[in-house]
């Protein structure tokens, strides 16, 4: 006897519901029956799908929703794959290319190149010294290869985030309608637990393909650069925009000559956030075969190897400090050039 039988009996829907199959009895029900107590009003269960199903088998169980979603996804999977696979294929090439370049270039060439980039971006010898000591430390404790793999992935993913995110942000800043449409998507990407996008991606692509984690990282990390580009362009002083109009600038002249340069501090702040978020995601992506320091973190968790986990965690912190300081130093240079 299920709780909500009375509804279906009362409405005369019993026939529609069909006969109850004997089926398996839940533990709770069994207990209830054995103790022989009737349920008090306090224990009235919410009329959820499962509870209604008990009373009337024609109503689907909640399990049906999740399994329906799953079979629906599997149904469109092949069609989706035909479209998405070729589009995302270049990402696999970039990632494998970057990984092999970062790993095959010998350390005594790679480290000076990296330090050179740091110097160009920051023009600060102190920062170069700090970065050098961090990288040498990682190399000294034999984490150089892992660190380079992580850097290669971040490099490719952040670059693609910027290449896609800045134009999307610009388009959003020009159209209120587009902004209204895109912002909920960005909110969703930012709040959905990162593990969740991994699941459909695993169905779509093989776990051995680099683009699997590439897409996951890009989806997660692209949000700030889009948001801050949009914001930055919208915040450009309207007086200056008016002056640009009054002197007859074309839209293109206005975009490249006024809006982007004036929004640059915000865009750079977005790039900084994007890089930090791709670093966070690259660790999670090690669950789906992303190489790098994340693999060691995962090993530390899986085998409870405390030392391995802590040291690789420290390595990630050091990389994070490097990336953050260098992008912030570049941002500060842009700011002083403008203020």
């Amino acid at each position, binding site marked *: 006897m299920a709780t909500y039988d009375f509804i279906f009996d009362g409405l005369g829907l019993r026939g529609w519901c069909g006969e109850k199959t004997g089926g398996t009895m839940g533990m709770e029900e069994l207990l209830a029956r054995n103790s022989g107590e009737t349920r008090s009003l306090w224990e009235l269960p919410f009329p959820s799908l499962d509870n209604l199903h008990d009373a009337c088998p024609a109503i689907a169980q909640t399990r049906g929703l999740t399994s329906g979603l799953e079979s629906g996804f599997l149904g469109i999977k092949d069609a989706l794959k035909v479209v998405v696979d070729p589009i995302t294929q270049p990402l696999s090439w970039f990632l494998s290319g970057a990984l092999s370049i970062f790993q095959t270039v010998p350390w005594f060439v790679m480290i000076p190149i990296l330090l050179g980039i740091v110097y160009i971006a920051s023009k600060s010898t102190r920062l170069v010294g700090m970065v050098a000591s961090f990288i040498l430390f990682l190399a000294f404790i034999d984490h150089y290869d892992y660190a380079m793999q992580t850097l290669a992935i971040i490099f490719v993913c952040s670059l693609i985030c910027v290449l896609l995110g800045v134009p999307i942000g610009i388009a959003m800043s020009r159209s209120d309608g587009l902004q209204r449409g895109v912002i909920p998507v960005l909110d969703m990407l930012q709040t959905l637990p990162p593990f969740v996008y991994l699941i459909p991606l695993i169905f779509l692509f093989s776990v051995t393909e680099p683009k699997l984690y590439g897409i996951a990282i890009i989806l997660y990390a692209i949000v700030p650069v889009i948001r801050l580009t949009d914001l930055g362009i919208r915040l450009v002083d309207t007086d200056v925009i008016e*002056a640009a109009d009054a002197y007859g600038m074309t839209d293109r002249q206005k975009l490249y000559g006024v809006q982007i340069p004036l929004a640059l501090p915000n865009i750079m702040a977005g790039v900084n956030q994007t890089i930090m978020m791709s670093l966070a995601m690259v660790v999670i992506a090690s669950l789906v075969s992303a190489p790098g320091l994340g693999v060691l973190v995962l090993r530390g968790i899986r085998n409870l190897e405390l030392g391995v986990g802590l040291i690789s965690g420290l390595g990630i912190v050091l990389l994070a400090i490097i990336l953050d300081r260098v992008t912030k130093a570049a941002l500060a240079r842009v700011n002083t050039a403008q203020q």
Partner: protein
Amino acid sequence: MSEQIKISIQHLYKIFGDDPEMALEHVKNGVGKTELLAEYGHVLGLQDINVDMVAGEITVIMGLSGSGKSTLIRHLNRLIDPTSGQVLVDGDDVISYDEESLRRLRRQQMSMVFQKFALLPHRTVVENAAMPLVVRGEDKESAVQEGSKWLERVGLQGNDHQHPHQLSGGMQQRVGIARALTSNSDIMLMDEAFSALDPLIRTDMQDLLLELQQELHKTIVFITHDLDEALKLADHLVILKDGYTVQQGEPQEILLHPNDPYIVDFISDINRARVLRVRSIMEPKTEAIEGPVAGDIDGNDNLESVIAASEGDTSLNYRVVSRGEQIGVLHMQDLVKALVPTSAAEGGVRGKV
């Protein structure tokens, strides 16, 4: 000098709101500004504005905040589109321009100076001054040279490679003026160009503008809320209130014959001796004067200087000359009478106090 009309604004209306066409009908049927807002939810920005601006003159549009003066000036280069009416520049209706001709107008014929300077903060001073030419697609090097020339002309030497934020407000506005001059347009729109500056610098800038105008003879449209500034600069003065023209004409004329209590209130506070000129209050007369003549004065002298010359003696008569010829006689008694302001209007703002 022939009075060639450079810009002519005809029956210009601007209504802000969702359905300006509908509101326009009501306005043409005599609905007023407050009523339009209360009953139809539309804001009446400008109402039947008709102004002719003569080439080579400074037309000053004056009004308090909310009078629609900034809205009006933005119609000239169509930063704002009107609800109805025409703006003729050299006889061409600017309102009918497509995007391409509008851009040409803004690049070649009109330049603009802004209240908040609106310089590009990421460019150097000289790049800012050269901006109009660069926008037109001219070669950067010659544009910078031209910009540098005008910066020097407005009194900014040696700041070429600084950024705007390193300069004071007055210097930034000099850059703004240099930018407008570099564009070499016939028409200069100045939107409260000196309002953000402190009084001494403002006076300097007004003198600079008059000096430049002596030499360049641009058609200048100048917006201000400051009557002293308006009277100092204007060849033609237009006074706006709540979006309509209260009175327009030669400033001296408005000062001596205000036709509205609003204007009487406005002018009751100014220093008339400094603003009024001899030619406005003299007795026009070309034949020789009987009786003693204290001396010759110029028609464009202001009364202050005549009072100083007469040392306060009200019994004197002066011969007024212009370009060596007598154009009239000034009786000091008339001068003293002219100093008494038209009494503040009873219905006006001040009448109530």
